[in-house]
């Protein structure tokens, strides 16, 4: 009887143990085991979207995508770190010490190198190193290498290691270009092959949209090549060339030096990333004069036929203002004020305009605000409070000193003269193309009317005279009616102007009857000559000479 009870208890105990074990596996460990089974049966993959391309106006890519990989190692499979590093270093073109440093630094998963191309990956695979893995991560491809780098920006990583656009168009249109990732869940067999009748969930990625620019590759190439040569010729530290279509505000070209390679952006100093045409300000000097004179005509404070007696220096608030060459021509016309680039003549015009007229001009030009160009790093220029403007400030502003303006604000204002007085919003992107080829056109946008059409026409004619009879007449291409103005502005250094350091510039458009382009050229601290008429103007006409035949323009 006792033995029977013992057997019963033992059997009951055994069943209890089995039950408890089953309870442990089926209830307590349910989630863990389900996940393990899921991971074994199901293949999960986030499908990265292809980033949108950036194309020039002819549809050819300036930025496309290229397949690349992240090379990583699983530390638990790495037996000999030194040997591992020694084999990988020459193929990855990295120092052995930096690879072994990474392997020593991380415990589980070690990212060794990002954006490795396919050929290199194939070579690494031949090494058959244990624990080495490859994860696809597309990288940007630049067929024209560093062309228009400041406009394009570059793609780096965000805090989570995902691709993110910085600066220029990549930064401004990051959301449009990035797209949305897709997802794949697929049941697989023991060999890793998909089970056709098994479960498949697939959400397709939404690829990024592509951008089609106003930028003309040929014009950009001309501008970059000529600017690079000019920097050497004139010994300038930096330079910009911006070319714009006055009717649409579309940027046809924008070249700035020094620049950087967007593919190797991390090898360049951070200060190279910002586009100087929108992020840097400068004092425009005499190139600002036509804008002030046009305002005086617009407000009917002066007529184009009026004259001014340029008899000597003028004094404003105790400060003496002279002409740039200390030459005085007596009674001169409005046209001659521009031709001689007369500072004292402009002081007279600003006195006729008065404080309200001058401040109205600055406000109309958009000083103190952004132009709205589609570039990430556009700076908001500083505009002092109305009460802070003194007579001397208004006087120096009339000849472009004492105010800060971005190159894009300057060229936009001159483009308004070329566009019958209408100020356009400068723009790079002409249309956005979605994955399915659907095009969204971005129409040109008028900001406001800056001058009436007759005023714009008159000032354009005076600017033609300034080109043909002014200081830069020696470099002008005969047969084309180009409106323009030279500028030489001293650079403020620690509260005073350094007479040896200038920004030489030239802004103009042509042909006057039907302007095809507006161009601004600036050269920082040219050493061959400080004057805009001897540096920036020849560069302007050197580029213009190439543009005339390209645009189908012939001498009259």
């Amino acid at each position, binding site marked *: 009887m006792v033995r029977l009870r013992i057997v019963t208890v033992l059997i009951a105990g055994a069943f209890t143990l089995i039950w408890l074990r089953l309870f442990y596996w089926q209830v307590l460990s349910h989630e863990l085991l389900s996940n393990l089974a899921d991971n074994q049966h199901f293949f999960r993959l986030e499908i990265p979207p292809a980033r949108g391309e950036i194309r020039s106006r002819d549809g050819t890519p300036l930025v496309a995508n290229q397949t690349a990989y992240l090379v990583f190692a699983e530390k638990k499979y790495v037996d000999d770190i030194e040997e591992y590093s020694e084999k990988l270093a020459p193929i990855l073109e990295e120092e052995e010490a930096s690879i072994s440093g990474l392997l020593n630094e991380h415990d589980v998963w070690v990212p060794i190198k990002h954006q490795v191309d396919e050929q290199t990956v194939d070579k690494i695979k031949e090494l058959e190193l244990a624990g080495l893995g490859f994860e696809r991560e597309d990288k940007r491809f630049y067929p024209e290498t560093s062309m228009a780098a400041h406009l394009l920006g570059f793609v780096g990583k965000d805090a989570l290691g995902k691709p993110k656009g910085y600066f220029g168009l990549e930064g401004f249109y990051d959301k449009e270009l990035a797209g949305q990732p897709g997802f794949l869940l697929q049941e697989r067999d023991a060999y890793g092959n998909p089970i056709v009748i098994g479960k498949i969930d697939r959400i397709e990625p939404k690829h990024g949209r592509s951008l089609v620019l106003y930028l003309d590759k040929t014009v950009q*190439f001309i501008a970059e090549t000529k600017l690079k040569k000019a920097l050497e010729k004139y010994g300038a530290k930096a330079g910009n060339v911006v070319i714009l279509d006055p009717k649409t505000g579309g940027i046809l070209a924008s070249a700035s030096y020094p620049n950087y390679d967007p593919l190797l952006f991390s090898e360049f100093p951070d200060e190279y990333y910002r586009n100087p045409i929108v992020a840097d300000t400068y004092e425009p000097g005499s190139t600002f004069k036509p804008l002030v004179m046009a305002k005086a005509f617009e407000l009917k404070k002066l007529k184009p036929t009026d004259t001014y007696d340029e008899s000597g220096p003028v004094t404003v608030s105790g400060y003496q203002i002279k002409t740039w060459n200390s030459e005085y021509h007596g009674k001169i016309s409005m046209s001659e004020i521009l031709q001689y680039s007369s500072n004292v003549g402009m002081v007279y015009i600003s006195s006729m305009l008065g404080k309200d007229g001058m401040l109205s001009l600055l406000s109309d030009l958009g000083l103190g605000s952004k132009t709205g160009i589609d570039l990430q790093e556009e700076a908001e220029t500083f505009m002092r409070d109305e009460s802070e403007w003194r007579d001397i400030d208004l006087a120096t502003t009339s000849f472009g000193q004492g105010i800060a303006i971005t190159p894009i604000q300057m060229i936009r204002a001159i483009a308004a003269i070329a566009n019958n007085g209408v100020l356009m919003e400068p723009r790079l992107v002409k249309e956005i193309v979605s994955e399915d080829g659907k095009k969204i056109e971005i129409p040109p946008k008028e900001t406001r009317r800056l001058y009436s059409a007759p005023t714009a026409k008159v000032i354009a004619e005076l600017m033609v005279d300034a080109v043909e009879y002014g200081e830069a007449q020696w470099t002008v291409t005969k047969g084309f009616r180009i409106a323009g103005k030279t500028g030489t502005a001293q650079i403020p250094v620690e509260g005073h102007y350094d007479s040896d350091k200038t920004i030489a510039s030239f802004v103009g458009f042509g042909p006057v009857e039907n302007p095809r382009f507006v161009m601004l050229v600036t050269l920082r601290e040219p050493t061959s000559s400080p004057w805009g008429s001897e540096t920036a103007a020849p560069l302007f006409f050197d580029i213009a000479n190439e543009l005339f*035949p390209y645009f189908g323009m012939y001498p009259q």
Partner: protein
Amino acid sequence: MKKNILVVLSTIIVITLFSGQLIVSNRLATMGAALTEMEVQTDELLKENEELSHQIASDSSLMVVSNRAAERGFSSATVRYLERPAFAYQP
């Protein structure tokens, strides 16, 4: 008699369907490898397409075109515009 025919027919149908399912499932179950192969081939073709697009883009880049032109002896045309002569020209 009718009952027997129905039983036989039902049995035949069941066996046929069962066999059919067996054959179809068997074929589908082994198609995973073929599907993988097709996926690999699709990837390879896409990569090839991408490489060719890059080659076209690189070879037609202005930098490459101008360098090749220079190598072949082409130089940038210097456009000279002649001014109208101050005197009347008569043949």
